[in-house]
């Protein structure tokens, strides 16, 4: 029974990683850049939701909506101001700019909301479900996180598979120049990707802070790195890969904390990542690109 409980907890935290990892993977697939500021967009989303519910006293759904709206705009603005002018330059230049944006967001949050941690109240009011005589407890947060994760996954799969815009997105990630020749507006597609990724980050931020209630300007950086690892784990650029990677990473993390060692959980998670990459250099579901001479 304990093993089942750990599995459920692992899937829950893994679902949050998966939603964040989707943002990383989509941006990487289309813009070919490591967006290190993504983790901080999560933090901004959580703060917005916190402000709307705590200061304005509005219900939780309004907080989530506000967070999604603000983060979507933020994502597009960041892309337009900082990344768009650098399109076509070496990826390192964009990477450093993304790091600059990350510093900027963290320090702006510190100025606005101060560095002292805020106590984020969960958006779920449901009572935990107790099974098997209290041995197996499923909280409302777990249910909501997993449901949100499945919803996002199904939604994105349908979007990229069925709609014209989604197909354009896939085309751009496959071959940007060819897509442009086919009349796809590449700039708009990239902006849209950032908008979707940032909206997902906002949702992830609210879910993350509902599970782990302390909120401070650095809240997003560690889950950001973890989720980034998850995206690579599953094969960066691949949407199902990000999902699988996120959930697997969550499970590995929970199990290594439970059965091996709490202190060494970081080392274990990252070692698994290294081993996976050595065996499958493109990640679990990533496509191995053939090199052309």
């Amino acid at each position, binding site marked *: 029974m304990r093993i089942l409980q750990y599995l459920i907890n692992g899937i829950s935290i893994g679902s949050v990683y998966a939603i964040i990892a989707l943002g990383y993977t989509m941006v*990487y697939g289309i813009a070919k850049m*490591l967006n290190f500021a993504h983790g901080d967009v999560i933090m901004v989303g959580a703060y917005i939701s916190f402000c709307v519910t705590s200061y304005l006293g509005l219900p939780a759904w309004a907080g989530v909506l506000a967070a999604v709206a603000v983060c979507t705009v933020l994502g597009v603005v960041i892309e337009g101001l*900082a990344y768009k*002018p*650098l399109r*076509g*330059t*070496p*990826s*390192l*230049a964009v*990477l*450093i*700019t993304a*790091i*600059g*944006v990350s*510093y*900027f967001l*963290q*320090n*702006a949050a*510190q*100025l606005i909301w101060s560095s002292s941690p805020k106590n984020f109240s969960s958006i779920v009011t449901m009572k935990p479900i107790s099974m098997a005589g209290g041995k197996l407890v499923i909280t409302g947060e777990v249910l909501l996180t997993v449901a949100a994760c499945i919803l996002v996954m199904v939604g994105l799969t349908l979007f990229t598979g069925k709609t014209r815009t989604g197909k354009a997105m896939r085309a751009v990630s496959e071959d940007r120049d060819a897509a442009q020749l086919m009349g796809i507006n590449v700039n708009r597609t990239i902006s849209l990707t950032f908008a979707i990724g940032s909206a997902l980050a906002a949702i992830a931020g609210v879910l993350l802070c509902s599970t782990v209630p302390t909120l401070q300007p650095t809240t997003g950086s560690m889950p950001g*790195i973890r989720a*980034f*690892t998850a995206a*690579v784990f599953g094969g*960066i650029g691949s949407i199902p890969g990000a999902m699988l990677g996120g959930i697997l990473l969550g499970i590995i993390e929970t199990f290594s904390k439970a059965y091996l*060692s*709490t*202190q*060494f959980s*970081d*080392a274990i998670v*990252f*070692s698994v*990542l*290294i081993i996976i*990459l*050595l065996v499958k*250099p*493109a990640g679990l579901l990533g496509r191995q690109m053939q*090199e052309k*001479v």
Partner: protein
Amino acid sequence: MKKLLNNKAARTNLITYLVVVLAFLAMQLMNSAGMLGSSMKGFLVPICVYISLAVSLNLLVGICGELSLGHAGFMGIGAFSGILIAALLKNTIPNDFLRLLCAMLGGGVFAGVVGFVIGVPVLRLRGDYLAIVTLAFGEIMKNIVGNLYAGTDAEGFHIAISTSRMPLGEGGKYIINGPLGATGIQKLATFSMGFLLVLFTLFVVLNLINSKEGRAIKAVRDNRIAAESVGINVTAFRMKAFVVSAFLAGMAGALFGLNYSSVTATKFNFNTSINILVFVVLGGMGNILGSVISATVLYILPEAMRSLQDYRMILYAIVLIVVMLCTWSPKVKEYLSVAADKALGIFRKKEVGTNE
């Protein structure tokens, strides 16, 4: 001498050495004249450390073309092994300078060996994947060093990696105390040693770049497949650059560790790796003098802005973004050059006017 000055590479190298030596002499003069504040004095050793780190990372990122996000990991290994060596040799080598030298060499060798061990599997990967694995490696190192216990007691020296505190016998004294880090370090680091370290790093890296090996490494960077097809052993050369870079980072780390009375493993985290990378990219990839200057300026910049308090890091972030846009973006560059032309044009017209 004339031949030397005609050779472009040799000339740039000479300028690099000259700048460093002159900066050192100027600092020494200002120090003896009492012109340096106590905070500025505190910066001298870290600046030397970061210059060495930036130059050694530049070898990897700029010359070799491999993006590494775990340079702070090697720095951390160097720091902790250096601290251990310095503490253990306290009675064997009474001379501070010699002991510091041993600690730095030991730190470098340790980091170099770890670099080699990691390099064997990791260098099979390329590009962004290599970056991610080096990131993962940095985090693993931080995690392990954060749970490392070392100390001496009546029975001798003990070392353990464990989740709980390692017990020590009678008269036991911890040198490295798990998550609390190394405490009670004897501060051996001096500015002169920092200067020597910078010179040594420059000597190694510049000579490597302008050697047969360096040309091979650059060939691998520019076109791996072409390099392979003319018979360059790609893996061996990448490995050489990786190990040399790790060795130099370890030496710098040892000097860094011995500059403070206590150091924790969290100091050598992802952010530190990123900061060193920022020095390299802003200084210009592959440009060694650029790394030296940008490490100095960017280290002092946030400290100099301390009076702005809460705003200093946000300003630093803005400066970083703006500099990246101005140096890389084709549009912004074009706009700037047009603006510069206009400004110069006005200036020229005025000049013409005064001549009449």
